[in-house]
């Protein structure tokens, strides 16, 4: 609820003065302990000044006990009411239906209770707040559920000794201890190689495109921007088909990790371009002017002023781009093709990948393979999580002075994670 967020900020100012008062008075309070010898000689002991007393900070608009009581009361009475109507009077059944009816009754009773006890306007406000908060809780809940479910399915069955050291070639259907003999090393190798190659090819192009769109603003940049936007909406399976039909069917390449990397580049390029362009746009134009006014050529301005200023944002964009492609399955289906055995060479022969292991193994009849698929999903999730944490650290790890020129620094990730407004902004310009 919003009051929770604000309660922390409001008393802050008061709290600061309290701490500073206590640090001032702390040494003074210690003084008498040292001074007693002087008292013995007949000198007056210095009276320690009283620690400053500050009134207890209050928040007039706090979400009080009464409000909590109304919400709890509404929730409970909605439960009772819906239980009676749902199961006793109408003999309906089903958990989801019950939940939806309970939620609607909860909203209604919240409004009614608040309107009765406080005021009608407050009641509407409260109901909207409840809807917004529950929507947020729902989203967080779904994410936690997905992560929790995969973890719950994967972790108990993980055979740590083999998961990261073996591939699937020794799989025996009859073996009761099969998990000890199989692992996903082949898929980890494949995923890492494919992603690294895709990044090595895609990121320079993406940064160059973003610079063209935002710094050079050259011929056709509007068209390029539209194409990039359209490209980012391309279904990823199309990227796979593209590489398959252009390079594999024509025998330019065989099924290989490299072909998969090229398909991933098609996915990576627009997403990184768009984020980098957004990051470059945040660089104040005054810096470009200052650089030009010092006699810098355009490439110098971009290389020495714009890119360093946006460095952490660019790094974040790249990490998020990696997170985007690391879990792509469709482009790999007919490019890397998947494999049960280790293949270190990304340029030759079929290669495994984590998403492919999940895709193929989870549909098998053997419980061992299904377990393995969940373990691969767990490893993949952990990989993405690590990348997101890295992205966060990089976007926070700014020089202190930089905060002044980029006040919306903290909002950056929020803007990255909510892609729709970025699109709107892009199309409006």
């Amino acid at each position, binding site marked *: 609820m919003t009051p929770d967020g604000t309660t922390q900020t409001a008393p802050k100012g008061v709290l600061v003065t309290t701490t500073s008062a206590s640090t001032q008075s702390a040494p003074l309070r210690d003084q008498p302990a040292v001074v007693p010898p002087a008292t013995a000689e007949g000198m007056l002991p210095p009276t320690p000044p009283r620690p400053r007393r500050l009134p207890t900070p209050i928040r007039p608009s706090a979400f009080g006990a009464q409000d909590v009581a109304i919400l709890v009361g509404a929730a409970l009475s909605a439960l009772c009411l819906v239980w009676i109507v749902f199961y006793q009077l109408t003999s309906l059944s089903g958990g989801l239906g019950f939940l939806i009816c309970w939620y609607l009754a909860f909203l209604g009773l919240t409004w009614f209770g608040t309107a009765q006890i406080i005021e009608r306007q407050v009641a509407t406000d409260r109901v909207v707040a409840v809807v917004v908060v529950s929507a947020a809780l729902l989203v967080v809940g779904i994410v936690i559920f997905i992560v929790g479910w995969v973890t719950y399915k994967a972790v108990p069955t993980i055979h740590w000794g083999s998961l990261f050291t073996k591939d699937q070639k020794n799989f025996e259907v009859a073996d009761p201890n099969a998990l000890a003999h199989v692992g996903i090393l082949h898929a980890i190798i494949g995923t890492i190689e494919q992603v690294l190659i895709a990044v090595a090819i895609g990121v320079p192009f993406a940064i160059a495109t973003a610079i063209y769109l935002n710094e050079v603003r050259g011929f056709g940049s509007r068209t390029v921007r539209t194409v990039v936007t359209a490209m980012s909406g391309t279904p990823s399976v199309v990227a796979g088909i593209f590489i398959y039909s252009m390079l594999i069917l024509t025998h330019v390449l065989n099924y290989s990790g490299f072909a998969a990397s090229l398909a991933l580049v098609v996915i990576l390029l627009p997403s990184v371009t768009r984020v980098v362009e957004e990051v470059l746009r945040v660089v*104040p134009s*005054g*810096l470009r*002017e*200052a*650089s*030009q*006014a*010092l*006699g*810098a*050529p355009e490439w*110098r*301005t971009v290389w*020495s*002023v714009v890119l*360093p*200023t946006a*460095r952490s944002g660019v790094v974040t964009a790249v990490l998020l781009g990696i997170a985007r492609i690391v879990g792509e399955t469709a482009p790999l289906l007919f490019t890397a093709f998947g494999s049960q055995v280790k293949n270190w060479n990304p340029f030759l022969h079929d290669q495994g990948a984590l998403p492919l292991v999940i895709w193929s193994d989870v549909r098998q009849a053997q419980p061992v393979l299904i377990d393995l698929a969940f373990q691969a999903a767990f490893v993949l999730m952990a990989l993405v999580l690590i990348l997101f944490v890295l992205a966060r650290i990089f976007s926070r790890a700014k*020089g*202190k*002075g*930089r*905060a*002044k*020129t*980029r006040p919306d620094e903290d909002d950056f990730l929020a803007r990255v994670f909510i892609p729709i407004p970025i699109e709107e902004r892009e199309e409006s310009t």
Partner: protein
Amino acid sequence: MTTTLPPAAPMDPGHPAAYAGTSTLGDPGQIDAEGVCAWFSGRLVLETVNLTMEKSKVTALIGPSGCGKSTFLRILNRMHEVVPGAQLAGSVRLDGVDIYGPGQRAMETRRHIGMVFQKPNPFPAMTIAENVLAGLKFSRISPASKDDLIEESLSKAGLWNEVKDRLGELGGALSGGQQQRLCIARSLAVKPRVLLMDEPCSALDPTSTLRIEQTIKEIADEVTVVIVTHNMQQAQRVSDYCAFFLAEENQPGRVIEAGRTEMIFGEPTDQRTFDYVNGQFG
């Protein structure tokens, strides 16, 4: 576009390095603007400005908002053409060499005619020292002694004592006034012959403003200063010459009156100048 070649140019004005070799500090330049007009997207905003900015003097451009002072200033070091849709006519001569003449490159010109902007804009990814040296880095010039140049430039900008122990900190860590003086130091480090200042104090508090004004007076004998300001007192305090710009209703901006500062403020010949400097409009 009328390009008037100077009668006694020191070098062939068509040569890219026409005034490159003679640039040393203590060698301030004189700027003659002749018949300067400016358009934004086809709309005339500045009409036939003839103005001479004397060597080693401070010239203040005053006038109400939107009268083309800043546009004129940006024409003086070819920053006007950076704006999309901007056009111009006329000639601007630095010590007799037309900066818009054939073969003259904008980058080269901007090294000789530096600029300080309204909003302090040190490069946030660079340290204080790197900021000072940025212009040289951009021009691929390595000074004889970087440390000496940093100290010299920061001292001239009146910032050395405040930052000498924290040269490795990022430029953005300074206060607004200090940032602006860092920008002045950065511009002075490339040893320009003219320094253009576009309302350099309008984002600053009175104390910082005073420091900048002192700085302007101190550097004036080494570099010609042209300053745009909205502050009448500031124009009176720092400038030797003054030009009053005005854009009357539905008219492009023009220079109404120009001359010695005492004259403009003391006994202006034009009624509009009198009204403006006495705060009766604008």
